[in-house]
């Protein structure tokens, strides 16, 4: 048996290996979908750091996703000769700054107030993106072409799907691992404990406001990275990347996957993208299904897919009874 401590690393390694062989196994169409899943997985992971770890329900995460998406699109169009790295770097820098500034304003509130404010701010950003036609393309959006990837010793053409898929796998994969690592660090643990007992943390001398601001900025930058790849993937960016819908999308993914674990939201992203691709082909009433899934899950499986999997696993391993902890998890808020 492998030491418990090393299991996550093994898991990560396996995921990368699995990802690496996918272009051989999958047809182009599915590879395309998988790329989208990976991008959204990072977006969902970043959101879960806020919701699942710090207990902050934000309705404004698309601000950062969209900001990253637009930064890449606008900079690629207006800065001739900008490299892929440069565009991505700009997106991260931009979202870090925006995260820090908005975080300073918004984090003065908690709970439902925070949710409401983030929603209002998201609407503001979306309105600006729609109105500022000369830069953002307004309703028409912006089309971009992926530049080639320069690695110093060689240049890789990014026009094809497979090469872009590998690029996504490596960069986004690394970002996800970094997020996971973040939760294991002292900083991450601080945030975790903060959710459980903020008063006690304050008592012990932690500045919870600063911790929260750092986390908010960090998740913003990560979402910005996801947004950057969203533009690169579709080679297109429009105001829907920054719309409130994009926030509800990530909320749904995170919630369906389960906020209780780090890996749950990734599963949520996968299910969401697959469902969206098939359901919206089958029925034009898919918002209804989305609503039903939401209500059903809130009422009966608040722990998301993770909870179901845990339940099934418990059945197999012969442990009886459901895990009490999930049912009362949010009880104290």
């Amino acid at each position, binding site marked *: 048996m492998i030491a418990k401590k090393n299991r996550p690393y093994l898991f990560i390694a396996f995921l990368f290996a699995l990802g690496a062989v996918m272009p051989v196994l999958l047809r182009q169409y599915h590879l395309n979908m998988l790329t989208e899943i990976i991008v959204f997985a990072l977006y969902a992971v970043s959101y879960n750091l806020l919701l699942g770890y710090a207990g902050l329900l934000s309705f404004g995460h698309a601000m950062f996703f969209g900001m990253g998406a637009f930064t890449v699109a606008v900079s690629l169009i207006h800065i001739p000769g900008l490299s892929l790295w440069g565009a991505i770097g700009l997106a991260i820098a931009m979202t870090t700054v925006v995260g820090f500034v908005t975080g300073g304003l918004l984090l003065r509130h908690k709970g439902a107030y925070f949710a409401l404010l983030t929603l209002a701010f998201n609407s503001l950003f979306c309105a600006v993106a729609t109105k500022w036609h000369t830069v953002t393309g307004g309703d028409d959006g912006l089309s971009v072409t992926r530049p080639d990837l320069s690695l110093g010793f060689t240049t890789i053409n990014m026009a094809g799907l497979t090469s872009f898929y590998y690029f996504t796998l490596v960069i986004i994969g690394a970002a996800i691992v970094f997020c996971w690592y973040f939760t294991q660090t002292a900083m991450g643990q601080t945030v975790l404990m903060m959710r459980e007992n903020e008063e006690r943390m304050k008592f012990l001398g932690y500045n919870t406001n600063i911790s929260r601001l750092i986390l908010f900025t960090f998740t913003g930058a990560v979402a910005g990275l996801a947004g950057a790849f969203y533009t690169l993937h579709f080679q297109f960016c429009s105001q829907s990347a920054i719309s409130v819908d994009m926030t509800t999308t990530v909320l749904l993914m995170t919630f369906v996957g389960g906020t209780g674990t780090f890996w749950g939201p990734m599963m949520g992203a996968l299910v969401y993208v697959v469902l969206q691709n098939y359901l919206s082909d089958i029925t034009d009433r898919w918002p209804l299904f989305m609503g039903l899934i939401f209500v059903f899950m*809130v009422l009966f499986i608040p722990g998301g897919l993770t909870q179901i999997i845990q339940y099934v696993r418990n059945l197999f391993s012969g442990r009886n009874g459901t895990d009490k902890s999930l049912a009362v998890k*949010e009880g104290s808020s």
Partner: protein
Amino acid sequence: MSDFPVFFLHGLAYGGLLFLVSAGLTLVFGMMNVLNFAHAAMYMLGAYFSYTILRMTGQFWLSLMICPLLLFVIGAVIERFLLRRVHVFGHVHELLLTFGLAYIITEVVKWVWGNFPLAVNVGGFLGGTVEIFGITYPLYRIFIFASAALVGIMMALILYRTRLGIILRAAVNDSEMVNALGFNVPLVFMGVFAFGAALSGFAGVIAGPLLSTYPGMANEILIDAFVVIVVGGFGSLGGAVVASLIIGELQSFGVLLFPKLSLALVYLLMSVVLIIKPSGLFGEKQ
């Protein structure tokens, strides 16, 4: 500025409608700390019920009475059987629940009534016009403001002149304590939520003839109503009154004075208020 009075009237009418929509929202938010995403969907439901009643009877006043009652019942059922169940899980789950409900209600409406705008005409006395400030002005717009004023005064009387009002205001401060003092807070909450729903239905009936009734009407008003809450102060009824009127006038005069900025003005106002007074104009510090 000879147009001043007319544009002021325009602002009052739209501000009044905004208040009607946000009053229930802010009440529920203030009392129960639930940000009800389904509020605008219920407002839409009110408009559609009204459409059907008008088609069947042609009686606008009748639908103005029946629709809020229907929404009251729907609100009570939602609170009793859905919202209360997730209350123990905290506000995240409450928000998500109302969020899902908003989707469901919107889709059901599209299913039942179709996807295109429906015409609602008040007709009769209210459909007429009056001469005011030397121009012809639709009476209905004045009626909107009058109903908003009436609702506002009624709510203020309940809150500040009755024992129920004391209980409600106490519940805003600390609902658990009200419960521990021997009041059936769950019942109070159910009543508040249902009343909020009824108000949204009332607003829907009023809005139908002005804005026409269509599935997108919910989302369009929701963000405006949220901005009213942010600007006015979380859960403050007086704040909602002031913020609704400010936003109504801002949009009206904004169109006249800064046509290029009209959409952004509202958000600009919100940002300024947030920076200067984060808890809103009339909000208590959290």
